[in-house]
């Protein structure tokens, strides 16, 4: 990765911008949640877009488009995921 670009995490990805997950800090997540996310295919290499954000304070949760599926997850989960805009 280009050392000059700051690390972009999924929670900061602009809406409707396609990106690829490059790294996931699994240690920041509870084991059960980590397994659930992986089971949904939200893992290194997956291509995602954030399609909606929550309405109340903190823009939490997020609706993430992955393949033909939309998955709702919280910002804490998204923050553990580094993405690279495509």
């Amino acid at each position, binding site marked *: 990765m280009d050392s000059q670009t700051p690390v972009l995490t999924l929670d900061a990805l602009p809406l409707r911008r396609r990106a690829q997950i490059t790294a996931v800090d699994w240690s920041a997540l509870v084991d*059960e949640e980590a397994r659930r996310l992986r089971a949904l295919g939200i893992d290194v290499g997956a291509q995602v877009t954030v399609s*909606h954000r929550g309405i109340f304070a903190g823009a939490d949760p997020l609706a993430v488009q992955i*393949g*033909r599926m*939309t998955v709702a997850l*919280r910002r*804490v989960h998204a923050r553990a995921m580094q993405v690279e805009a495509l």
Partner: protein
Amino acid sequence: MNDLSPVSLRSAALVGNPNAGKSALFNALTGARQKIANYPGVTVERKSGRLPLPDGASVELTDLPGSYGLDATSPDEEVTRRVILGELSGVDAPDVLVVVLDASNLEQHLVFAQEVIALGKPCVVALNMVDLAERDGLVLDPAALENALGVPVIPTVAVRRRGLAELTAAIAAAPAQGHSHPRAHLDMVERRMEARAMAEATIISESVKHRLHSRADELLLNPWVGPLFLLGILFIVFQAVFAWAAPLQDGLEGLVGLLIDAVKGAMPASLLRDFITDGALAGVGAVVVFLPQIIILFFFILVLEATGYMARAAFIMDRMMAGVGLSGRSFIPLLSSFACAVPGIMATRSITDPKDRLTTILIAPLMTCSARLPVYAVIIAAFIPNRPVGPGGIIGLQGLVLLGLYVAGIVGAMVVALVLRRSVTKGAASGFIMEMPKYQLPRLRDLGLGLFQRAWIFLRRAGTMIFHVTIILWLLLNFPRAEAGKDQVDASFAGHIANGLAVLVEPIGFNRDIALALIPSMAAREVAVASLATTYAVASDDEDATAHQLASQLKTHWSLPTALAFLAWFVFAPQCISTIAVTRRETNGWKWPAFMLAYLFGLAYVFAGITYWAALALGL
């Protein structure tokens, strides 16, 4: 039939990801021949039914809970894993596994499908909802998928009954078939890559259509339109539950009343007659009176779930619920509890996280249900002067007190949720990770079946207990018999219990009359009003007149601090056996209803006491 290997085929199970359309397929295959029970030892629902085979025999078909993999993360998935692997004692492993795939989401659904097929058991794949895939502009090649998976693949549209005969035939033939080429064991990442490759090979063409559901989401998850739409939906649901249910409830009560009158007319006055009318028939009345609310509320909940909107509502409300350690999924059950905690608690089944669900069940009775209103109304009318307060005097003091009681319940529930999530129901996380299903039109048949099942579960499981307790309460109030000329209630067991209770509730400002009213109102809160009316010898056929007379009687017998303490008591007190019965049914045991009773009575006692002494100190 294959003569070489006469395999007896007894059972089959539907497995697949959540939202693969399994339940619709299950309903289409088994019709109304369904049995619902819980799996041994857990509250996960077991749905099974008989599937007739082409040769005239039939198999038991089970609809396993939706799962993303054999590596379970929820109790539902754990059940699926253990049933498939034959590890669940008392449940035989299914002879044939029917893997259900959403044809428009193959890339995701093929991951778990590979894992199931790799087990080497007889398998059939139902390529379900091919019509929706076509709507999305996908043209699929089932033969390519069959080739890649090595097991029969049958395209189906459950709701239009397409492909059902072919699927049934494939299930019947599966045990003799075996896998054409058993797959090597892959890990999760390899399976995911393989799934992508298989999906690509199966999709012949894909025209770029802007999918309907993403357009709907633009609107329904819009920061401005979304919440307004949700509010509108909730308004309609509430209006329906309150307004539509009332005449039906009155009708059912009237029907029970007619029965009671008929018995009274046909039998001479006796203790047996009283038992039939005031014990047994009143018990039936106490049960059926809940049916209209349950059916109306579940009609809306099932529609919201079937259309896919429920997940959106959870998404919108998640942030607010997260504040007290819950998730958006708890919102609808809690809101429903404002009408009645019974359907509210039944609605918690849609909460997947068991700790979230338990917390929601435990705080549901704190939402001010409609049964508290008659109690509040009588006490407020008697003790709170109807004078305007606030700037401009547009707010009535009575309305303000009523609002305060509602708020007290909500704040109480929030604090209790926070405390429970850090103690009794402490869990790793109540993370909100949820697939948002595609929007779909609900099918009337599935709705009808779902409604019937909810109503039946309530009648059979909770209803029997409500019925029994009503009868026990009647016995307590009527035995032992009073001597001639003496008051029956004073002589009864209930009267003696009230004497003991009076000592206990004296410190919180309650007199013996209240202690006595608390016993029958265990059946339902609103009974407290009728019971007090009896105690103060207020009798009138007209309910409004009764309330009015009772109010003036209360004013002469109770002090204001006592009345306020009584109100505070009813904010918390779990005086509703139906709620307890439903909690027992939904948590599969006595542990949690006992906990609920203890903590709610504890809170009621403490807050009634605080209210009483604070009011005394303020010189009210």
